[in-house]
Structures are given as structure tokens and as C-alpha cells.
């Protein structure tokens, strides 16, 4: 036990180890942030496309694309998608791997986010739309002023879930040779360095845990504020 504590302290006090862990951590954060932003934007766009009720050809084609996108992304493993991005789509010499990873994870996340948003919008009682329309609001005004504000409340918890899952899932980027937090833990624990896996991996776990905990806390606060009108 005392050896474990000594090794943990060593990681935090030895400059090379700490730098190694921090640069890995930075990479994890950069990919997570970039991918979640991209995922949110994509998710909203795809969800809106999916809920488009027009029957014209201009609506049908994007709707079909959105459907295929969600089906394919949710039906194939993330690791495979990452490989395809890195070794097929962006297999260009000198193309920054970070960007590749952000795009791969963003596209993946977008599919899940869009489904969450779609479910959130559909969960708002149809009577709300009817009431809005009966007051002479246009369908887009009804959507913006009445349905979406209520949908957000329903969607926030599941979007939070998706972001948490995304942060942890970025740990597979070492498969395309990137240096993230998980990879850093492997490196610091290797025979050339600390020659112990438990300590650096525990430290990495603590890093992940603290980010996820902060995120959860933030989401809870937002939720609480949005639930203000639910009090009876």
C-alpha cells in the first residue's frame, strides 16, 4: 500500500511523468470538447431534418440521408469508424490526427445526440403544438417558443449522458497512434519509466472521474434551473 502511495506521489512530483500525464489529459479534453461541439451541432441539424414534416422532394432527400447516417453510425463500432477516418478518409500525409479524431468522434456523437433530441421533441405533448397553432402561431414559432423550450428540459439529462460516454470513449484514440490520457498512463507505467501500471492508471482514472464529476454537477444545476416551472 505504501509503495502504491509513494508511486502516485512520484507521478505528481516527477516533472517528466506529470508532463506526460498532463499532455495526454489535454489531448483527451481537446478531442472531447471539439467532438461534443461538432456532435451537438450535427445532432440538432439531423434531428430537425428527421422531424421535417414536409412531403416535398427537398425534404425527402435530406431525411433519407439523416436516416442512413444514424443507422450506419449507431450500427458500427466506434473503433472501426475511427480507423476508417484515420486510414481511409483522412489518410493524407500531414493531416493533423487531432482533427481526424474530433471529426470521427463528432460524427459518432451526432448520431446519438440527434436521437436524444428527436425523442425529447416527440415527448412534448401534441396538445402543446395544437394550442400554439390554435393561437395563430406559425409552425416554426410554435416549435421555437413552445415545443423546444419544453423539449430541452427533457433532453438535457440524456445529452449529458452522451457527453460523459463520449469523454470516456476518446480513450481509444491510442489505436490510431494518438497520445491521450489513457495512452499516457500506459507510457508512464511502462518498464522504461515507472515499471508499475496500477499507480498511473489510478491517476488517469482520477482525472477522468473528476472531469465527469464536474460535468455531471454542471448538468444537474442546469436541470434544476429548468425545472423551476415544474414546482407545485
Amino acid at each position, binding site marked *: 500500500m505504501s509503495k502504491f502511495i509513494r508511486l502516485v506521489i512520484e507521478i505528481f512530483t516527477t516533472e517528466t511523468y506529470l508532463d506526460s500525464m498532463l499532455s495526454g489529459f489535454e489531448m483527451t479534453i481537446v478531442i472531447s470538447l471539439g467532438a461534443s461541439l461538432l456532435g451537438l451541432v450535427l445532432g440538432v441539424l439531423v434531428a430537425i431534418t428527421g422531424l421535417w414534416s414536409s412531403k416535398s422532394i427537398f425534404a425527402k432527400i435530406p431525411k433519407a440521408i439523416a436516416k442512413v447516417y444514424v443507422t450506419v453510425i449507431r450500427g458500427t463500432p466506434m473503433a472501426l469508424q475511427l480507423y476508417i477516418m484515420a486510414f481511409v478518409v483522412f489518410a493524407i500525409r500531414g493531416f493533423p490526427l487531432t482533427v481526424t479524431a474530433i471529426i470521427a468522434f463528432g460524427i459518432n456523437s451526432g448520431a446519438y445526440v440527434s436521437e436524444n433530441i428527436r425523442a425529447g421533441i416527440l415527448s412534448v405533448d401534441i396538445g402543446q403544438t*395544437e394550442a400554439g397553432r390554435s393561437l395563430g402561431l406559425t409552425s416554426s414559432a410554435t416549435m421555437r417558443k413552445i415545443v423546444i423550450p419544453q423539449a430541452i428540459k427533457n433532453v438535457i439529462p440524456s445529452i449529458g449522458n452522451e457527453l460523459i460516454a463520449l469523454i470516456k470513449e476518446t480513450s481509444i484514440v491510442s489505436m490510431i497512434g494518438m497520445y491521450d490520457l489513457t495512452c499516457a498512463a500506459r507510457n508512464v507505467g511502462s518498464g522504461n519509466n515507472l515499471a508499475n501500471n496500477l499507480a498511473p492508471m489510478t491517476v488517469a482514472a482520477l482525472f477522468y472521474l473528476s472531469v465527469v464529476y464536474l460535468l455531471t454537477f454542471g448538468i444537474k444545476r442546469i436541470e434544476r434551473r429548468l425545472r423551476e416551472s415544474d414546482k407545485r
Partner: protein
Amino acid sequence: MISVKNIYKDFGSLHVLKGVSLEVEKGGKYVIIGPSGSGKSTFLRCMNLIETPTYGEVWLDGGLITPVDPYLHIDVIMTSRTFKSMKQSTGKTDDEIIMEIKKKDLLKKREGAEYKSLIKKIEKENTIEFNAARQKMGMVFQQFNLFPHLTVMQNMTLAPVYNGIKTKEQASEDALKLLNRIGLSDKADEYPNKLSGGQKQRIAIVRALCMEPEVMLFDEPTSALDPEMVGEVLDVMKDLAREGMTMVVVTHEMGFAREVGDRIIFMDGGLIAEEGTPEEIFEHPKSPRLQSFLAKVL
């Protein structure tokens, strides 16, 4: 004011309305009664296009708000290919053919350019924008449908301000007046979830009034209420009737129908089975169906 012409509504293979017509005149109080599943609510919802009728037209103040129904225009039928080919192949008169087309729903999508352009022409000449039309028709729902994320005041001012009918100050001033009238001005800044069912429904009524509609449609406004709260909602509606508001009310409250209605419409099986003054309907019902219905509910 509102003219509903021969409305049909199908939900898949279920035929809910089978040709219902109604002329709503200014200041009239129309009460629609009937057993559940008779299409009363669907009919009301077709009037302000919350449901789009499968066939039939709805006119508001001389403007068409539904798509054109070819079966309602004899000149349209007569330009159709179906009509022309039937005229050639059978020896029937024009009237017989028109009757047959109407009866058997024979018009198809491909009826030729002349037919299409005639429909377009009718549409162009008569159609009015239905969002504007809806603003003239206030609607009150069985489930209140207040917006839970907005306060009572915001519920009432959102639509008039957004639609540019009133300024924000004017809208809140009017809203307060209306709330005062129903004795709920102290609830202006509450969220709907804190209110009782009766309060919610009274606010839903004045929310619709904020748009200054010409006619109010009520879709079973008291059916979701506890019995003790029915009275307060009916009182607001009676007040409204006394002021001369044009009203179309779907309800199971026979007492209200008799007291307020000046035209009672009894619907059964997607059709208007009987129609008349309260006296005619309640004292001298003609059809056996209405008699048995009244025997059950009165």
C-alpha cells in the same frame, strides 16, 4: 361567418366524419352533443384545421381555409377526364354522371391540365392564409394545454405579441383585465402547474380571448375537471355567451346546452343526426337514436 361544407375525415380505414356541414352565424351559440366516438371533437378540430379534412371545405368570412375539394365544384368535376370518358362510354346525363362520381369517389390524381388549372384558379381566388384565419378562432381544449414553461401572464401575451396584434404593454394590460374578470389576477405570475384544473381551464379560455377572436371553439372544456370545478368554468362560458360571442361548444353538459345553446347539433356515427333549437332537441327529439341518447344522459 364559418361555413363548413360536407366534411369527411378518415383516419386510415376509420371514417370518423362522413359528410358534415354547418353554417355558423355571427353571435350564434352552437352546441354539439352526441355519444363518444360520434366525431364531435374531430368535427370541431376540422373547423380550425387542427385536423385537415380528407374532403370538404371550410370557409371563414368568405375565405377558403382548406384545400379545394373538387367534389364540391360541379364545374371542376365536369372538366375532369373521368367525367369526359364516362360521358362518352355511358349514355347517362350530366347530372347522373356527376352524382355517380360524387357517390363513388371516382376522381383520381390524373385528371388533366384543364381540371388542375381550374382547381388552382379557385384556390387562388378564395384561399386565405390559415394562420391568420386561426387567429380569429379561439380554441379551448379538454386538456387545457396551457404552456407549462411560461407563467400565466406569458401564456396569455405570447401569441398576441408575437403575431403583432398588440404591443407588449397593451397585451399585459388586457390580460390583467381578463384575469380580473375571472377573479384570478393574483395568479398572473404563477406557473400553470400550481393551479387547479378549473383555474387552468378558465385561464385557457381567457388566453384564447387575448387574441380577440371572432368565434370561440370549445372542445369538451369540462370533461377533464373534477365535478366541483365544472361550475366555475361554465360560468365563464355563460358570461361570454351573454356578451354575444359566437360559440361552438362540444360538451356533455346538457344543462349548459339547454341554457346557452340556440342551436343544438346531435351527432352520431360521423353524421349530424338531428339539429334544432334546444326545445326541439330536448323536449321533442325525433330520431330514436337521439331519444335513447337523451334517456341515458338526462
